[in-house]
């Protein structure tokens, strides 16, 4: 006769039991709980009180455009928005095409993204009539991408190429080419010194991670090479770059790159981008090296034994596995890069942080007692936190999915 399962004693379940176990398990714990609760309540209340009653959000609100696109011509705002549309559309497609484990992570990131975009659209609908249709288009395209991919699964093959192409198309839209007042067939050229704010923050970090990728892989392979000249060059490069802070490299690129190039003077944005890419490549190389080292030696040998050329075995066997295992680390690097973009203000570029500092110097902002530095800080902190936190969540999910980090 099997003993039937009985419900646990009442004191083991329910809210009270939970509280006793987690908050008041002994006197010491109870004391900590009470003190902590009081401190938290006081902190949260005073922060909310400040944010709702004391803070002056008018200047932040009035400068939203400046902080989003800086001096990008307002009549051409559809162009950065077009880049957003492309990215959201592809995001939708990726989500529509994903099924398995890692796919679920893409799906949840997509849902989150659409929620965020939807929120912005709602705000735009009521407060920013000039861009409301553009934002509606973003939402529509995001959904359309999802269902299109569902309907035509063959697109999966094209997706990686579409993503790569999207970067070029975005650049094309942002920069524009061929058009001017007399020639309306092209897109009017918008020099990079007008770009800034959030679009620059995004463009800069995405470009950084995209461009540092090949260089980082090359350096990682070079560091693993049996040829001493190449190996030691790569070690030298990686260690020198990692030995000094990013800010010194930005400073170097800004001041000395024109000198190194013999009078050729790239735009400030390119100089900073070069510094970021060269810097990130060293860190990327170390991540990839981790993946390469984690790869069993037998994989390489098996590829050799089958007679694959070094190029083929690298391309087909080694890199796909090595890179897959370091995806979380690469996401981590991207988060770092995204945060580090705030340093380009040191070389006179206007990312979100720099624009916010500039907003604080406007005569109108100066007229507010105490300035609006706190409000700007809260705005920036929320912006960065929002994206970085979501990415780190995705990175952790990936880590679990790929079976890394579990021992």
């Amino acid at each position, binding site marked *: 006769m099997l003993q039937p399962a009985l419900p646990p004693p009442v004191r083991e379940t329910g809210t009270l039991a939970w509280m006793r176990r987690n908050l008041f398990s002994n006197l010491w714990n109870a004391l900590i709980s009470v003190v902590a609760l009081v401190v938290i309540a006081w902190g949260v209340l005073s922060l909310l009180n400040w944010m709702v009653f004391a803070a002056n959000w008018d200047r932040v609100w009035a400068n939203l455009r400046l902080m989003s696109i800086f001096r990008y011509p307002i009549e051409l705002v559809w162009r950065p928005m077009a880049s957003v549309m492309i990215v959201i559309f592809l995001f939708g497609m990726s989500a529509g095409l994903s099924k398995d484990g890692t796919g679920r992570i893409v799906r949840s990131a997509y849902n989150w993204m659409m929620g965020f975009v939807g929120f912005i659209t709602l705000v735009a609908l009521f407060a920013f009539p000039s861009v409301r249709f553009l934002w509606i288009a973003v939402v529509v395209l995001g959904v359309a991408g999802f269902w299109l991919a569902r309907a035509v699964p063959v697109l999966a093959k094209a997706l990686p190429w579409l993503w790569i192409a999207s970067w070029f198309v975005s650049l094309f839209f942002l920069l524009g080419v061929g058009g001017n007042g007399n020639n309306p067939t092209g897109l009017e050229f918008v020099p990079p010194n007008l770009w800034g704010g959030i679009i620059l923050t995004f463009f800069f970090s995405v470009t950084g991670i995209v461009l540092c990728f090949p260089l980082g892989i090359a350096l990682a392979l070079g560091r693993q090479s049996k040829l001493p000249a190449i190996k030691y060059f790569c070690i030298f490069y990686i260690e020198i770059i990692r030995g000094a802070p990013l800010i010194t490299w930005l400073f170097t690129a800004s001041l000395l790159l024109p000198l190194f190039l013999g009078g050729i003077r790239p735009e400030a944005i390119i100089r900073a981008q070069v510094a970021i890419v060269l810097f990130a490549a060293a860190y990327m190389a170390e991540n990839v090296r981790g993946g390469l080292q984690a790869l*069993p030696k*037998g*994989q390489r*040998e*098996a*590829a*050799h*034994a*089958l*007679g*694959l*050329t070094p190029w*083929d075995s690298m391309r*087909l*066997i080694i890199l*796909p*596995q090595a890179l*897959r295992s370091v995806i979380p680390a690469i996401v981590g690097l991207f988060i770092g890069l995204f945060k580090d973009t705030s340093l380009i203000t040191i070389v006179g570029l206007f990312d979100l942080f720099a624009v916010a500092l500039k907003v604080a110097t406007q005569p109108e902002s100066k007229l507010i007692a105490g300035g609006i530095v706190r409000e700007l800080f809260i705005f920036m902190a929320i912006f960065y936190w929002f994206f970085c936190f979501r990415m780190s969540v995705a990175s952790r999910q990936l880590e679990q999915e790929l079976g890394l980090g579990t021992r």
Partner: protein
Amino acid sequence: MDSVVSALAPTGGQTIIDISGLNKWFGDFHVLRNINMSVNKGEVVVVIGPSGSGKSTLIRCVNRLEEHQQGKIVVDDIELTDDVRNIDKIRRETGMVFQQFNLFPHLTVLDNVTLAPIRVRKMKKSEAEQKAMYYLEKVKIPEQASKFPGQLSGGQQQRVAIARALTMEPKVMLFDEPTSALDPEVVGEVLEVMVNLAKEGMTMIVVTHEMGFAREVGDRVVFMDAGQIVEVGTPEHFFVNPQEERTKSFLSKIL
């Protein structure tokens, strides 16, 4: 040593692997000492010996997974030198099966098997897949073709690895302790495949601890110790009437 060398002479037929005066060092460690050996077409040579005796290193030298410092290795009339072309040719003509299988975990079984024929032999995809299925059937796992290696048992993985090597249609198969990493209950299925292969006349060099296999299939047994070939002989001769003291003590421990 002269007696040993003479015993190594091919017993007839066409020589496909000829190793002479082979020496190899790992740093200062002399891992292969003056190895002379040749293998005839269709012959199955089983290499046994205690661990660290250089068995694996020897067969890894044959397809240049390890570089040898002195001596000569000729495979199918191609000498293994620093010449890239020769190395490539020899690798094409030899298939290798590893202790740890070394399947590519990110590719399906079918992709694992067709990869080299398509990339190296420049075979058409359909042709390669046809051939792959033929060999997968031969190792008795055609139904697993679309799975990933991680989803297979050890024995199945090792059979896929054998199929992968065979699909290149090599002239020689090298087995580097193919059953050592397997659970005892699945060792049999792998050995069965190897026995069949031997019966079909494949030239094989097998490094193994499976004495039963050596006795049943081996044409010759090579016993190595401390980087040298100690004794060579037919299985009957070797297991029943070993000549060297070292061989006797080894066999007494494992049999």
